[in-house]
């Protein structure tokens, strides 16, 4: 203890205290921060109805109106089709937790069967695009090179070269497409969820949508190669510059400190 108090005013004491404090704060935060999954479980029990309309009345009607005609809180669902429902609900975007500029993804709380029932109900309100067949979005059938060209013409302006996502106005954003289910990518292009414009088949034919999915599979999945090493998130020069300013120059300065430092002296006895 005496030793400790003697070192209390050591020139390096402040740094040691700071490091302890940081470690303690981080540890406390990790221990106390709410786990992400907790919310999903709570509402899961509330979903017990099987029939689409009943599901709709519970989960959707408060914003989209009792008959899907829309309200001030949500757009009309007449004519959006089954594809839109499947996309919005199975990615967890709908039902929304709270109104905001954009509905984020969250764990899906409906079973596949329930989503199909909901989709069937919405599709019955008015004709719209249906849920695509698996062959339509099978990336192995697509041409990645052609898909890349289409992606750069239609998509990369918001989603970045390889679909890493990007910012839009006033806090909205185009999401990262990393490992997104090809089916959802297909449906998003078809239906234009939220801020995203739609690309109906007459504008972007089905086989071209599949090419785009093939491109994304080639460059933005967990299996995609990053030939040159760690990819820094794929955000381009800003991330690279940050790396150079921190780790890059940090390593070089560390080496420089070693080169210039005085060698340990023999203890004077």
């Amino acid at each position, binding site marked *: 203890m005496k030793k400790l*108090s*003697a*070192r209390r*005013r050591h020139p390096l004491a402040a740094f040691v205290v700071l490091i302890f404090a940081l470690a303690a704060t981080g540890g406390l935060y990790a221990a106390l921060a709410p786990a992400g999954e907790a919310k999903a479980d709570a509402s899961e029990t509330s979903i017990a109805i099987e029939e689409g309309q009943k599901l709709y009345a519970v989960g959707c009607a408060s914003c989209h109106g009792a008959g899907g005609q829309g309200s001030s809180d949500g757009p009309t669902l007449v004519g959006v089709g089954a594809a839109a429902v499947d996309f919005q609900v199975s990615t967890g975007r709908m039902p929304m937790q709270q109104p905001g500029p954009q509905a984020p993804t969250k764990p899906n709380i409906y079973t596949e069967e329930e989503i199909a029932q909901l989709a069937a109900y919405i599709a019955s309100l008015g004709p719209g695009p249906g849920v695509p067949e698996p062959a339509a979005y099978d990336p192995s059938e697509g041409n*990645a*090179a*052609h898909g*890349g*060209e289409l992606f*750069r*013409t239609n998509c*990369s*302006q*918001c*989603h*970045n*070269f*390889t679909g*890493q996502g*990007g*910012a*839009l*106005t*006033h*806090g909205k*954003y*185009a999401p990262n497409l990393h490992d997104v289910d090809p089916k959802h990518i297909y449906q998003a292009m078809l239906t234009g969820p939220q801020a995203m414009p739609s690309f109906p088949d007459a504008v972007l034919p089905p086989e071209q949508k599949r090419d785009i999915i093939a491109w994304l599979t*080639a*460059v933005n999945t967990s299996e995609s190669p*990053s*030939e*040159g*090493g*760690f*990819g*820094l998130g*794929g*955000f*381009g*020069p*800003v*991330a*690279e*510059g*940050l790396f*150079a*300013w921190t*780790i*890059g*120059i940090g*390593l*070089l*300065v560390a*080496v*420089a*400190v070693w*080169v*210039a*430092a*005085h060698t340990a002296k023999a203890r004077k006895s």
Partner: protein
Amino acid sequence: MSTTTNPPKETRSGAPAGEKVADWADGRLGVYTVAKSNMRKIFPDHWSFLLGEICLYAFVILLLTGVYLTLFFVPSMAEIEYEGSYIPMQGVLMSEAYASTLNISFDVRGGLLMREIHHWSALLFVVGIFFHMMRVFFTGAFRKPREINWLFGFALLVLAILTGLTGYSLPDDLLSGVGIRFMEGAILSVPVVGTWLQMLVFGGEFPGSLIIPRFFVAHVLLLPGLMLGLLVAHLLLVVYHKHTHFAGPGRTNDNVVGMPLFPVYMAKAGGFFFLVFGVIAMIAATTSINPVWVLGPYRPDQISTNAQPDWYLGFSEGLVRMMPGWEMVIPGGYTLNLGLLVPLIVFPLVFAVIALYPFFEGWVTKDKREHHIAERPRNAPTRTAFGVAWLSWYFVALVAGGNDIWAIHFDLSINAITWWTRISFFVLPVVVFIITRRICLGLQRRDREKVLHGRETGIIKRLPHGEFIEVHEPLSAEKRYALTAHDQPQPAEIGPPVDENGVPRKVGVVEKLRVRINRGYYGPSGQIPKPTAEEYREITSGHGHH
């Protein structure tokens, strides 16, 4: 010299081969004379003195890898269909420049590594220059006699940025093509001659087929050639002036203390080259940079978000991003694109501030002495505050340059960030200036305390009469000297309103301003008086037992 015939020089037949070679070279190059004055030249040891070497070595690495890349790169904008081995681009129409870059990355073994080493070195080159400049700036090492070398260094920074810009553009990918488009817009916004300049630079309408070959020759020949010349001049001046060093026992303004060039610095500096090269090679092995193959070839009608220049131009990018959309048509029907023109003017001005600062300080202080002692930043609070304020200015612009990345990573609104940078650009440097100066003064006060009272040890002692005191450890003579070696000039005075003959003196507005700024540097608000010998003696004799 002498008119008499010289007897034949005796050859040292018994000397070892190395000496014979040296003798041979000496007869033609005078190597012994050069070696005599330089071989044991002293270099001071401090890690921050190696920052410039990082830049030098990065430059050498850039030359080495750059030459390799030119063996494969085709600087042509002719359109071809890609047939190389990168499948997600096969069949895509692209320029030969882009195709050959893909070729370097996927069909030349080690080509990708060379590209990555080249690009990482380029980024670290400019980062190194910044760190090196910060070291020189904050220690006042730009003062007489080194102002010219500061300008050389500054010119090297500008050339490095231009070389980076031209190199970044060469692969003709969708990202760098946007950079060239930006250049075209910037040139077009120049009043009166903008359209002419644009046509001349691009050889016709944007993008044409000449800009890549033109950039290529600038990138591989013109700019590196200029840099090489400047670099040699820069280094010669460093040798001529001898390096600065920090004040310490035995280290004065009239000497330089350290280790000799041969062998210690030869080994250290030579070794450091290999260390820098090794670190950059390992960074390139593990960390991807500019994966052009996923970016696609440039087309003026395509774009990706995250369209940014390399970091060293992120600052100018930020200036443009924070500009409001001002445009005016002046009488005569001419358009001024102020949304681009204003940042284009501010950009060099911000840099010029740094280039010209040594002359500004020289004018304010009227200090004509030679300075070879590196000042501690705290002992020049106004300069330090100025430098940190400039950095905060730069930082705000950098934030603006990456506002979309900030927005998406911190869940913020891009508009809010832009507004924050617009305001901070004017406010933050002022705030930072004030805070930094106070911190420096606080540190000076602490130094003063330490010199007078010694270091607080944390040991509490109880005196016989019950009083508790903390034991202070007196500083060693070396420490005391180091903490008081800096000089503290007297603030300038305007002087009496009349001269000795009673005639009113005329003091110009400029001189009045100079005196005011000078008082900011050296007045009571600019420095804490360092302890005097009397103060020290009084305290040490009075409270010797502490």
